[in-house]
């Protein structure tokens, strides 16, 4: 297997430059000249970590996003940083040849490769809704995950379930953490995730040989630690109370806050407002449309993308909190009014007769 040194040489870097780089690295890390040969030795001998990329029930939007990464370029990630040994949509080989690559890496790098999963396994009908290599995807997923060092869940599909798991979820598609229990899983949600976030997660894991710090839901904190809303360039309009009221109004032209148009920025954890998309060109809010919350769990089932107060499915009908709560309050108020009326009538009757309320002997 190719080492980092081999790759550097292949890309035209001389041994002299390589050793200079090692010395410089040792010095800048404060390790002293003694460590320069050790760094060189590590880079010369340490094989690049193989990555196996499986595709389950998905739309390939994660892959489409990944190959558009600008920092680092997807080409650099795939060709020099990691050893992407299996990815059925990107690799040249197909069929039995491709399967052979997969089996070879699993056998040769047992416990040392990273599994990246795009899409998720459907469980109904024994997983027959998604077949890869002649077998249900769920079986292949479990087989490859068994000997992996860590698992990356690409996108909302692998992380939460996404559209194929939206109600009523006919194929019973489940996020991968419902079938893989014994491996660390890094969730990189989004539909798709931002290209730079994807490459950065891979780069981090390969460079430091450890998982990035994760939050409570298993997402890398460095990209999912804040909401879109917290870093949104339209935030000053939110604080000022300047909103887009309809799609073609003055506020929309001036770029006011899209909160009233149902923007899910305040409830969505992602890096869109800082990293943006397509080499930092724009992101949905930058283009005048609210965030739909694609990196959040079950975002398809949260009612309209254009509602601020969204629906509650539990109440049988598509009702929102105001309809349910308001009805409850109104019914209670009506009950109170009726009760008060009866109380008043009873008392009027009693006062007339036995004098209730004066000596308490009304009974």
């Amino acid at each position: 297997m190719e080492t980092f040194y081999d790759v550097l040489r292949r890309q035209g870097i001389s041994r002299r430059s390589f050793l200079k780089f090692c010395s410089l690295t040792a010095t800048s890390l404060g390790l002293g000249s003694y460590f320069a040969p050790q760094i060189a030795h590590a880079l010369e001998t340490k094989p690049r970590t193989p990555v196996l990329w499986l595709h389950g029930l998905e739309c390939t939007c994660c892959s489409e996003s990944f190959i558009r990464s600008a920092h680092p370029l997807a080409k650099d990630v795939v060709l020099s940083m990691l050893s992407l040994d299996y990815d059925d949509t990107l690799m040249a080989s197909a069929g039995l040849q491709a399967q052979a690559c997969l089996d070879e890496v699993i056998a040769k790098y047992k416990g040392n490769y990273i599994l990246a999963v795009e899409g998720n396994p459907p469980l109904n009908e024994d997983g027959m809704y998604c077949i890869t290599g002649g077998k249900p995807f769920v079986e292949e997923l479990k087989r490859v995950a068994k000997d992996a060092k860590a698992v990356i869940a690409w996108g909302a599909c692998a992380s939460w379930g996404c559209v194929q798991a939206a109600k009523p979820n006919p194929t019973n598609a489940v996020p991968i953490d419902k079938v893989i229990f014994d491996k660390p899983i890094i969730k990189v949600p989004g539909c798709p995730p931002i290209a730079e976030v994807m490459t950065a997660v891979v780069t981090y894991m390969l460079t430091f040989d450890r998982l990035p710090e994760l939050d409570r839901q298993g997402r890398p904190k460095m990209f999912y630690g804040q909401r879109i809303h917290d870093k949104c360039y339209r935030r000053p309009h939110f604080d000022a109370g300047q909103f887009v009221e309809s799609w073609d109004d003055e506020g929309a032209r001036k770029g006011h806050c899209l909160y009233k148009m149902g923007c899910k920025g305040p409830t969505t954890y992602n890096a869109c407002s800082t990293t943006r998309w397509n080499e930092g060109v724009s992101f949905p809010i930058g283009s005048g449309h609210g965030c739909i919350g694609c990196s959040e769990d079950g975002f398809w089932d949260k009612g309209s993308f254009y509602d601020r107060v969204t629906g509650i499915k539990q109440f049988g009908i598509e009702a929102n909190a105001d309809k349910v709560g308001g009805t409850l309050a109104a019914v209670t108020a009506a009950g109170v009014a009726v009760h008060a009326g009866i109380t008043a009538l009873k008392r009027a009757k009693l006062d007339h007769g036995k004098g209730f309320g004066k000596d308490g002997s009304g009974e």
Partner: protein
Amino acid sequence: MLLHNSVDTDPRNKDLKSIYIYEAPVRLWHWVMVIAVTVLIVTGLLISYPPPSVSGEASEHFLFGYIRFAHFASGYTLAVSWLLRIYWAFVGNDYARQLFLVPIFNKIWWQEFMYDVKSYAFMHVREIKYSGHNPMAQAAMAFMLVPVSFFMMITGFALYSEGAGKGTWSDMLFGWVIPLFGQSQNVHTWHHLGMWLMVTFFIVHLYMVLRQDVTTRESIVSTMVSGYRTFKD
């Protein structure tokens, strides 16, 4: 622990004219809560349905910021007042514990509870005199007001932690609530629904205290001001 509170059943209370029920911290908590919850409901509705946009430059205004500030400040006030209230349940008089300790294993309490139910259903004309809460009111406080208040404070601080950021006290104490509900939007929805439960409680509470004050033989409304329950016969 106060097992049951009817004044009628105790012969020693024959000539009783008044009892000191609500100590100053309890009364203070009550009225602080009235103000805080009112502000919370009004600002909460404004956060869900913001007022019409203001014109001019964003730098000239901070309207929505102030609305949210009022909501958060009232939330903090409510939480602190509840902490003091819980503390007072430990050190205050027996009535200060009624909100938290319901004698559901006490037979007399249940008899009085059933008597209350029948009274409110107009099946009895004469109602029992109580010093503290009547059993129905006590149940409403303990099983509605207390849980809903805490639900609102817990979900509220969880939502607050999202803006406050990772590692803040609200995130460390209440951040776990967000994944428990699935995601932030769900917490918003349930927090909103909880607001309507508070409104419902308020409607019933206001009606009951006014009704009791008018129809029964003891003081109700003025008791939360002076602390004394006075009896009319």
